[in-house]
C-alpha cells in the first residue's frame, strides 16, 4: 500500500464518477457492466448512476452530425449538473463524449450552435467536467500500481491477447488519450493481472462491427482474420473493452467458425472479468457464464495453478 499512498500525496485523484452505460451494454452485454462494477468497487471507485441519459449520439452521426453533437452535449450537461465526470464502458460513447466535450470547449461558435439546440430543453453546455473510457480511468486515475496491488491470484499461467477497439484512441486528435499506433494501456493492464501478454499480427486493425447491419460479411471476415492471428500467436484467451468488439469476437465466434470452417474456441473476456479473476472474484460474480465462448478452460487453468501452490 505504500505506492498508492505516495501517489495520493501529490494530487488527490477523484474517486466518484457518473457511470454512462449507453445503449448496447444494457441491451445485451450485462456481463461487462457487472464485472466492471465489481472491479471498480474493489479499487475504491464509486459509481453514481447517470440520470435520464440518452444515446451518446454516435449511431446516428451518419444521418445528422448536429444531432450527434447535441445528444452528446445533453449527456455532458446532465453530468455538469451533478458536478461529476463521466466514465463510459463503451469506447464509442467515451470517444464521442470526449470529442464533443473537447470540440465544444475549444470552438466557441460550435458551442453557441449546440447550446442553441439545447435551449429548448433548458440545458446549457458549460464545459466543466471530463469524460473518459474505463480503460483510461484504470490507468490514469486508479493507476497500475494500485491495480497490481489488488491482484490476489496472479494469472501467470495464462497467455492473453487483446483487441482494444479503435475508439479507445481514435481519432487521436480529439480522443486525446494515448498514441493509437502504439497503445500501451491495455497491454499494461493485462500484464498487471500477471498474465503473459501476447502480440499478434495486425493488432490495431478494426473489427468492423460498426457496419454490421449494412454489410455483415466484411466484419465477420475482419474478425475471423484477427481471431486466427490470435490463435496462431498462442493465446489462451483475449480481452476486449467494447460491447461491439465483444459481440464480434465472442457472440459471433461460433458463426465465424461455421462460416469459415475454422476452429477457434478463443474465450473473449471483458477486461474487468480478467482483472476480477485475478482479484479473486468467482466466475459467477463476474458473469463469466454469459460469454458465448466457454471460458471454463481458462478458469481451470488459473485454479490449476492454485492447486499446485
Amino acid at each position, binding site marked *: 500500500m505504500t505506492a498508492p499512498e505516495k501517489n495520493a500525496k501529490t494530487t488527490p485523484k477523484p474517486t466518484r464518477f457518473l457511470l454512462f452505460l449507453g445503449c448496447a451494454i444494457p441491451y445485451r452485454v450485462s456481463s461487462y457492466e457487472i464485472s466492471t462494477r465489481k472491479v471498480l468497487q474493489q479499487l475504491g471507485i464509486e459509481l453514481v448512476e447517470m440520470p435520464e441519459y440518452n444515446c451518446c449520439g454516435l449511431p446516428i452521426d451518419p444521418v445528422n452530425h448536429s444531432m450527434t453533437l447535441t445528444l452528446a452535449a445533453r449527456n455532458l450537461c446532465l453530468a455538469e449538473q451533478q458536478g461529476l465526470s463521466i466514465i463510459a464502458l463503451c469506447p464509442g460513447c467515451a470517444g464521442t463524449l470526449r470529442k464533443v466535450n473537447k470540440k465544444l470547449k475549444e470552438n466557441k461558435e460550435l458551442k453557441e450552435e449546440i447550446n442553441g439546440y439545447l435551449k429548448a430543453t433548458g440545458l446549457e453546455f458549460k464545459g466543466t467536467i471530463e469524460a473518459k473510457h474505463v480503460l483510461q480511468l484504470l490507468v490514469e486515475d486508479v493507476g497500475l500500481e494500485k491495480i497490481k496491488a489488488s491482484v490476489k491470484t496472479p494469472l501467470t499461467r495464462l497467455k492473453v491477447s487483446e483487441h482494444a477497439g479503435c475508439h479507445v484512441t481514435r481519432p487521436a486528435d480529439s480522443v486525446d488519450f494515448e*498514441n493509437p*499506433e*502504439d497503445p500501451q494501456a491495455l497491454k499494461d493492464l493485462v500484464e498487471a493481472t500477471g498474465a503473459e501478454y501476447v502480440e499478434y*499480427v*495486425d493488432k490495431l486493425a478494426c473489427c468492423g462491427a460498426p457496419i454490421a447491419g449494412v454489410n455483415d460479411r466484411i466484419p465477420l471476415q475482419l474478425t475471423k482474420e484477427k481471431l486466427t492471428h490470435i490463435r496462431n500467436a498462442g493465446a489462451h484467451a483475449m480481452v476486449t473493452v467494447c460491447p461491439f468488439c465483444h459481440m464480434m469476437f465472442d457472440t459471433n465466434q461460433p458463426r465465424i467458425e461455421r462460416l469459415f470452417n475454422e476452429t477457434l474456441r478463443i474465450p473473449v473476456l471483458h477486461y474487468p472479468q480478467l482483472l476480477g479473476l485475478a482479484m479473486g472474484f468467482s466466475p459467477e460474480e463476474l458473469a463469466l457464464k454469459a460469454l458465448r465462448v466457454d471460458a471454463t478452460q481458462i478458469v481451470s487453468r488459473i485454479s490449476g495453478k492454485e492447486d499446485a501452490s
Partner: protein
Amino acid sequence: MTEEKPRIGVFVCHCGLNIAGVIDVKDLTDYARSLPDVFFAKDNRYTCADPGQDEIRKAIKENKLNRVVVAACSPRMHEPTFRKTCAEADLNPFFFEMANIREFSSWCHPSTPEEATEKAKEIVRMAVAKARLLQPLKEIEVPVTNKALVIGGGIAGINSALDLAEMGFKVYLLEKTESIGGHMAQLDKTFPTLDCSICIEGPKMVDVGRHSNIEIISYADLISVSGYVGNFKVKIKKKPRYIIADNCTGCGECRDVCPIEYPNEWDVNMGVRKAISVPFEQAVPLVYSINLDHCIECYKCVDSCGARQAINFDQEPEEIELDVGAIIVATGFDIYMPYDDPLYGYGKYDNVITALEFERLILAAGPTGGKVIRASDGKKPHSVAFIQCVGSRNLKKYEYCSGFCCMYALKNAILLKEKYKEDVEVYVLYMDMRTPFKGYEEFYRRARDLGVTFIRGRASHIIEDSQTKNLNIRAEDMTLGQPIELPAEMVVLCTAAVPKTDAGDLARILSISRDANGFFMESHPKLKPIDTPVDGIFVAGACQAPKDIPYSVSQGSGAAARAATILSKDKWKIEPIVAEVTPELCRNTRVKCGICADRCPYGSIEAIENQPAKVVTAMCHGCGTCVAECPADAIIQKHFTDEQIFAQIEEALKKNPEGKILGLLCNWCCYAGADLAGTSRFEYPPLIRPIRVMCSGRVDRDFVLEAFRRGAGMVMIGACHLPYDCHYISGNLRMKARMDALAPMLEKLGLSPHRFRVEYVSAAEGLKYAELMKEMAEKLDELGPEKIKAENAKLKPILDRMLAKKRPQKAQSSK
C-alpha cells in the same frame, strides 16, 4: 546640420498590378501631394526598375528635393536600392524613407480595396512624417580581416574553402567530427552518373588538407561568435583526441595492436572501429583519435607508436580564438531515424533499414564488402522495396519534400539491378517521382528499363512475418485503385533529410534565423539565397534546405564568392544606425547610473564613474535597447529617434484611433513575419498601422503610452521569440521585462487587458501574424469603440501628465 526646410518627394509604385490592382494609385499619389512639405508626388509602374529610379534622380535634381519617400514594397526588399538611387543624385541616403504598401496593404487586403487604399494613405503619411525629421548620416567604415571561417566540412564547405583559398584568402575550416567529407563520404555511388562518391570527393578532401591557405580545425566545436561584418571574433573548443596531431603520421600501427572494437557511427553502426582509429581510411586530416569511453588503457598503442610519441592521454580540451572577416555556414543535415514510427517497424523489424544503411551495404568498401544482405539471416534478399517520403511530405513529421531521396532511391534501385540482375526484384513505392534536373529524368527511364517496378502509392504500414522475417508492405496501388500487400525480403526507408540537431544552438551563436522547418534561413528566398540576415555570414549546402551534391557544390562556390565581396576589401561600410549619448543629459556624471552599459547586449557602452556614458560606435549593433532603457532619455538611436517614432504614432492615429492597432514591429522577426503574411497573400483585417524598429528592445514605454494617449484601440509590440531568437541577443528580453511592468500598471488604470499586447512572431510565421491580426480585430470588435473611447478618456489626463514631463526634453534632444 541641415536646417533647410524639408522638400519631400513621394514616389508611388504600381508594382505592375501587385499594388495598382488593389490600391487606387492615382488617388494615393494625389493624397501624398496634398501633405505638408511634399513638393512632388508621382506614380510609376515599376519604381525599382531603371526608368523608375531615373525618375527619382531627375526629380531630386529638378525639384531640389531633400527627402524622398517611396511607397512600394517592404524596406527589407528595396531600401538599399533606393538609398543608392538617392546617393547617386547627391542626396544623403538616409534622407530616404520607405512606405510599405505592398506587403502591408495591397497583398494582404485584396478584397477590401477601399480600406487598403485608406491604409496605404496612412502608411504614406507616417513615412512622410518620419521623412520630415530625418537627419543625414554618414556610413561608418570598419576595417576588414581578410580571413574566413567555414563551418562544416561536407562537400559544400569543402568547395567554399577551396574557392576562397584559391582566391588567396586564409580559410579556417571548422569540422565537428574527426574528418571532413560529410555525408558524401558515406555514399556509394552518386546519381545521375554513378561515379563512386569517395573517388570524386576524396581528391578534393586531400586538396583541402594540403592547401597552404586552409587550416582544418577538426573534432572541434564553435563556442561563440562576437563582432560584426569584417571583424568577427570566433571562439572554438577542440575536443581532445589524445593524439598529438603534429606527431601522428597516420600509419595506423596503433590501431593494429588495439584490442578493443566498438560500433562505427560513421558506418551507421554497421561496422566496427578500434578504440584508437580513424573513422574511415580516407579521413582528412589523417589523425587518429582514442575513444576513452571504450579504451581500456592497456597502452599497447603507446608502445607501438614508439618514438613518434604521438599519444598523449593527458590531452585537455583546447580553446582557440580566431579573427575572421566573413563566415560561411555549411553544416549540412541529419537523416530522420524513424524509430518513432511504429507503422514501419524500423528498429523492430530486422530487415527494415534506412537508405543510408543501404549505401553502406552496397558499397564495396563497406562493412559487408558490398554484399547486400539481410540483418536477420545474412542472406541476400530476392526482393527489395524502397519506400519514399518516409517522414517527408507528412504534416505530422516534416512537411517539406526532402528533394534528393527520389533520386537516390533510383540510384540504389539501379545499382541493385545492375548487380543482381533478375535475381532481385526491386520495387519503389512513391507518391510523386521528382526528377527535375539535368540528366535526372533519363536516370528514371534507365531504372524502368532495368525492370525496377514503380508503384504509385504511399506505403501505409509494414508487417513482419515473425518466422521468415520477410516483410509485407501495405499500400494502395493508385493506378489500379486497389489495396495491395507487397511481399519483400528487405525494405529500404528513404527517410527525410532534417536539420542538424544542434542547428538551434548554432543559430543562436551566430544570431541567424531558422525557417519553419528548422533549416537556416536565407535573407531572401529568391534574390539573396546565400546571404543570412547578418552581414558577413553566408549559408551553403544542405543546412539551408535539403540539396543534392551538384546544388550543394554550386552554393558552396556561391558562398565563397559572396564572402569574397567582403574579404577582398580593406574597409567595409556599415549602417550608421547606432546609438549616441548626449553627454549633457547623461546623469552618470552626477549619480552612479550605467544602466545602458548594463543593458547593452554587446557591451558596447562604457560608463565610467563621474563621466557621461559613451557608445563604442564600431561595436554598437544598433538595436536601440539602451535608448529605451535610459531613465534620462539621454541616448538617441540614429534614424530611429524618439521624435521620428512619436511623429509616426501621431500620424497613424489621427483618424479613428480607437478602431486601430498601433504596431511596433522588430525588423528581423515580426516585421519580416508580417511581410511574409503579405507575400503569402494571407488576408487579414486592415487595422494595424505598423512602425518598424530594428529591435523590440528599442520600444520605449513612452511609445505605448503615447499611442494610448492618442486614443489607439490596441497597441501591439511584435518581437522575436523568447528566449533566443532575438537578432540582437537579448533585446526582446529587455523589452519583455519593461512591458511586464507596464502592463499591470495600464490595467490598473482601467485599460482592458487585451488592448496592450506583446506578441512573438518569427520571420517564418506569416500565417501566425495573419491569424493574430484576425483575432485582434475580433477582440477590438468585441470591445467596441465606445468602451475604448471611455477607457481612453479616463486614461488621457494621467498619460498627458506622464508624458508632459518628457515632451519638452525630447524637443530639446532633437536639436
